[in-house]
């Protein structure tokens, strides 16, 4: 147990999943030809005016709702002034005074202990252009300029690097499931900064704050905080003082590195953006947005567990939104959900990964999937044999029964399973058993037929005969 108490706050930028940019109608896209997704507004030409994208406000309302934030009903934008080539109009349009959402929280589950992570505020702003720094020049790509962002700022309420990780995972899950953002950290559509300070006990004032900027993955957020805590502990132990500073995480060095402190600090001279009049958020706008919010991850997990799916598989399903959406379409069906989840997460996932397909791109529609689940749960087909016919199931439109019965591998060869069926048929047909024992060989054929019927023709006949004879002769 460390003798210092860490205090951690997280700031996250996420790019919103809109068609167009926040203040212009050029495309919001990733991976296009350099400087091909711009117009004069994005390039900051004199005389151009911003026009606010309706969908940005809708996604802001949506994010605020799922993050349990209060929604600001009348808001404006502000100019954050700074001179830097990533923003040629020399100010970024953001929300300083009136963030769209405030006083929210998300709940994390830290090894069985629930904790609320409080959100101070979330505001809408425009992204800057992407700068690539080289020794000779800085290179600018304006495709990202004007992409809508929301910045979500927590209160300094986390006390361990693991809480920070769990918070980010929760945030990403919520924003991804609500289509607010695609939350791809590797493409920069979700970016995290962490603030960390240490103090000896809770009643002490906060220690000196260090900001770790632009951390590229959730696991690196946890790692960089662990490294930074260790670094600060050592300094405090040695009575070394240090100034507030900005650092970055170097994944090659596996440690945080000091960044040069900017001389101008936070002198951004904010003032209200006069080119965008007030934005009023009505009850109707909020209600319309709420209608578009799907079943959220926590509710899905609960529902799956209630339907008999294991906790591990419930979590795995939520981690795969395609499969989770797929199974959500059949929640009202009377099927064995344990089997359904095993199929989706096992053989079907393996097939989809191998073929690089989504389940929607296969012929396995909901009706055929229900048939498949039923055939597996009533043991018409063993999971072993399923592997051999899965490709046919996923690429052809024939009924599951037809595929099973016309395949070479329809035989159920599970001896324990067949013994169960044999026992059942023997118990149900005492007359035939007697007939056989009295020398009527035809009786065994009748019993055999009943077993094949019971297994919908799926049993391996030779194996059934061997088990049956064994039972009858002893």
């Amino acid at each position: 147990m460390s003798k210092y108490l860490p205090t951690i706050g997280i700031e996250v930028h996420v790019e919103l999943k809109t068609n167009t940019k926040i203040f212009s109608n050029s495309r919001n896209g990733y991976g296009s030809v350099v400087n091909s997704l711009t117009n004069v507004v994005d390039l900051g030409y004199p005389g151009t005016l911003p026009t606010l994208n309706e969908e940005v406000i809708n996604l802001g309302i949506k994010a605020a709702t799922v993050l349990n934030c209060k929604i600001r009903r009348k808001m404006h934008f502000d100019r954050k002034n700074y001179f830097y080539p990533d923003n040629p109009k020399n100010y970024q349009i953001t929300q300083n005074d009136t963030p769209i959402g405030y006083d929210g929280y998300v709940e994390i589950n830290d090894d069985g202990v629930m904790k609320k992570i409080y959100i101070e505020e979330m505001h809408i702003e425009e992204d800057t252009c992407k700068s690539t720094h080289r020794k000779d020049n800085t290179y600018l790509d304006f495709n990202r300029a004007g992409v809508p962002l929301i910045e979500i700022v927590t209160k300094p309420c986390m006390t361990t690097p693991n809480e920070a990780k769990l918070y980010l995972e929760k945030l990403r899950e919520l924003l991804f499931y609500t289509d607010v953002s695609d939350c791809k950290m590797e493409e920069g559509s979700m970016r995290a900064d962490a603030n960390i300070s240490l103090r000896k006990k809770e009643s002490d004032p906060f220690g000196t704050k260090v900001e770790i900027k632009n951390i590229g993955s959730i696991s690196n957020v946890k790692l960089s905080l662990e490294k930074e805590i260790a670094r600060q502990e050592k300094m405090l132990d040695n009575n070394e003082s240090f100034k507030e500073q900005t650092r970055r995480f170097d994944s090659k060095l596996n440690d945080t590195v000091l960044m040069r402190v900017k001389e101008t600090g936070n002198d951004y001279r904010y003032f209200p953006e006069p080119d965008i009049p007030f934005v009023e958020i009505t009850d109707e706008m909020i209600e319309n947005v709420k209608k578009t919010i799907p079943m959220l991850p926590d509710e899905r997990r609960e529902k799956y567990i209630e339907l008999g799916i294991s906790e591990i598989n419930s979590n795995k399903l939520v981690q795969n939104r395609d499969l989770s959406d797929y199974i959500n379409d059949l929640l009202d069906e009377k099927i064995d959900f344990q089997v359904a989840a095993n199929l989706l997460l096992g053989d079907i996932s393996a097939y989809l990964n191998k073929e690089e397909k989504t389940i929607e791109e296969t012929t396995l529609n909901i009706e055929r999937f229900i048939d498949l689940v039923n055939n597996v749960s009533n043991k018409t087909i063993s999971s072993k044999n399923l592997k051999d016919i899965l490709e046919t199931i996923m690429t052809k439109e024939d009924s599951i029964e037809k595929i099973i019965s016309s395949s070479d591998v329809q035989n159920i060869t599970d001896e324990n399973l067949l013994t169960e069926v044999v026992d059942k048929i023997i118990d149900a047909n005492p007359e035939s058993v007697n007939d056989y024992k009295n020398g009527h060989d035809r009786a065994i054929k009748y019993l055999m037929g009943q077993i094949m019927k019971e297994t919908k023709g799926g049993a391996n006949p030779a194996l059934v005969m061997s088990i049956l004879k064994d039972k009858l002769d002893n």
Partner: protein
Amino acid sequence: MKNKLTKEEVLHVADLARIEVTKEELEKYQVELKKLLDDVEKINEVENYDDEIMIAPWTNNTTLRSDVEGPMLDPKEVLLNAPHHTANYIAVPTVINENESEGA
């Protein structure tokens, strides 16, 4: 009330605007900037009738734009006003060392 800004105040503003000032300019701006600030201060003398801030000389709300894509510039046009460019990128003097992050 003092009638000019300090040298440090002017140099700070110059630094924020990324401009260099000569010794003569510095003295001139100490007086000029102070005059500008005093003029702006006069706004504070106006009686406030409303608690709400005023962000523009009108009271109507903004009109939201539909999220529909419009025409975009060809990269060639984008580069027309850029003195230096390489492979579609606009090139500017290196602004930070590699340890520093991007702007805001």
